[in-house]
């Protein structure tokens, strides 16, 4: 239609200005989409937490161990359905400065861990193989792909928290229940860890890093927390019990200042998009004051004028936004590749896409508002008087 042709022709009048505007919006939208992706990736850990799981850890710090003997006592609490435990292993795998070698490694109870975490999807055979062999391990699908691990492979690493040279044999490769589940972990038998430690540092044997509890009823969680912590309040190692969600949040909140600033920056970017576009549209509308007055003289109505200005604004915002969004994907993917285990889940979420598109459209409309109303307010006689 004619009006679209005129919008296009108007937009192409100052090719460099239009190009720079679109480029500016494109870069800003890319930055916006990328930052939002980081923010959502960061909070994914909290969101995927289960509603019936609780974590019991040392009262003082997560890194201090608890006696394994607590397990029976916790299990005995009436609202507790099942208890499992795990240790953070740490260790150094190959070049520790390469991010891809920095994946989580944990010693877990092979009998109960996967019952409490059904998010790990494993075949029955893999699970049985894992339980049979003392130094067996299970790795995430994404991790296996990243390093080329296959069933039967030996993974060797040097311990740091638990010194010595450690060899693990891959007996299973798990998939996440859905795409939000971290597929970069490596899990091995707690007994393997404990036996080696018993030989080398007997004082450290029989300890677990933390307990994971499954409760029968979500409403019982506060009671369970109180009961567990009271149970050990006079012990050598006091406990702190909280829901998995609270536990995850305490991790995330360590970095929450960074996340909050990233979020703030993403909002600032919206402002930048607006300013870039508003500047271009205002300039264009001012330059064309006389032309708009001529159009009005010829009988064109306010709707036509609004259409011309807002249309051009939306065209630039739309093009810049689409390009920026298109760029968000490869950039996020590249980032995820660079730090494969840092953000286990790093997807450009639908909500990010929707937000980026809305931001661009919103900017397109707002940027056109003032030039449009200024143009409409200008009387024809005044507009025609305008020189240039």
């Amino acid at each position: 239609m004619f009006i679209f042709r005129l919008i296009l022709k108007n937009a192409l009048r100052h090719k460099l200005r239009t190009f720079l505007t679109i480029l500016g919006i494109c870069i800003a939208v890319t930055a916006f989409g990328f930052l939002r992706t980081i923010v959502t990736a960061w909070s994914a850990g909290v969101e995927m937490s289960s509603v019936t799981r609780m974590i019991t850890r040392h009262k003082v710090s997560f890194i201090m161990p608890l006696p394994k003997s607590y397990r029976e006592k916790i299990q005995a609490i009436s609202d507790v359905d099942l208890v499992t435990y795990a240790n953070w292993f740490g260790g150094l795998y190959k070049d520790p400065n390469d991010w891809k070698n920095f994946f989580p490694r944990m010693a877990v109870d092979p009998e109960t861990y996967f019952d409490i975490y059904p998010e790990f999807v494993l075949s029955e055979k893999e699970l049985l193989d894992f339980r049979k062999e003392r130094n067996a391990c299970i790795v995430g699908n994404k991790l296996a792909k990243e390093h080329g691990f296959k069933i039967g492979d030996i993974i060797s690493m040097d311990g740091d928290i638990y010194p010595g040279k450690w060899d693990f044999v891959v007996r299973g490769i798990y998939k996440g229940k859905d795409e939000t589940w971290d597929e970069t972990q490596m899990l091995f038998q707690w007994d393997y860890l404990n036996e080696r430690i018993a030989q080398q540092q007997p004082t450290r044997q029989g300890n677990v890093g933390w307990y994971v509890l499954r409760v029968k009823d979500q409403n019982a969680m506060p009671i369970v927390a109180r009961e567990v912590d009271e149970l050990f309040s006079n012990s050598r190692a006091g406990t702190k019990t909280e829901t998995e969600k609270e536990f995850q949040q305490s991790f995330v909140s360590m970095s929450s200042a960074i996340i909050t600033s990233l979020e703030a920056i993403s909002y600032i970017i919206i402002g930048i998009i607006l300013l870039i576009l508003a500047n271009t549209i205002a300039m264009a509308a001012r330059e064309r004051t006389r032309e708009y007055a001529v159009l009005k003289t010829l009988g064109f109505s306010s709707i036509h004028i609004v259409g011309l200005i807002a249309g051009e604004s939306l065209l630039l915002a739309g093009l810049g936004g689409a390009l920026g969004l298109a760029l968000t994907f490869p950039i996020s993917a590249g980032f995820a590749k660079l730090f494969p285990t840092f953000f286990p889940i790093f997807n450009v979420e639908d909500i990010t896409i929707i937000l980026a598109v809305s931001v661009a459209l919103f900017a397109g409309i707002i940027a056109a508002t003032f030039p449009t109303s200024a143009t409409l307010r200008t009387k024809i006689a005044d507009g025609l008087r305008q020189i240039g």
Partner: protein
Amino acid sequence: MAGNGFIQVDKVSKSYQRDTIKVEVLTNISLTVPEGEFLALMGPSGSGKTTLLNLIAGIDRPDQGTVVVNTVDIDGLGESALAKWRANNVGFIFQFYNLMPVLTAYENVELPLLLTKLSKKEKKEHVETALNLVGLADRIHHYPRQLSGGQEQRVAIARALVTDPALIVADEPTGDLDKVSAEEIMTLLERLNKEFKKTIVMVTHDPRAAEKAHKVMHLDKGELTKG
């Protein structure tokens, strides 16, 4: 109030507010233009010629008095009705042509027809007829910047007459042109008046242009006199 002219300007006043000062431009002006007239309005710069022309053409409104064109009291029309009225009844020619720079000659002439219900084919016929009339049939795909001033003004004339309006207003149509081009433009306007019976009100500084008109009036210090 009396009279039965095609254009009936009756006791019209118009002032502008410049900062705090009120500038009286037109005071109690009356003017009757019969149908088919070719009227030239002369007067010193700043005397209010453009202002009067704008009132007649319905692109501005008087503070007092009435303007009736072809039996329509244009002050009684709302904004959009007035816009529609202009599109149907008035053709505009400006000193600086005022073509859309991004549109070709053809598209510029087509512009007023976009507000009509004519079919594509009819529009094409109208545009081509108008461009033929001004002698620019071979320049239809040129952009304004590729045309000379005289040619641009001829495109503007084609745009003014493509909707076949009864009234044509021209504000210093030769003011920016060399002698030869001005001559061509005046010949065209004369033809529009004689052949196509358009009523023309033309503001001009140029005595040679005024010669082509049937009647010349002078506007000076808010007063309109026959000349």
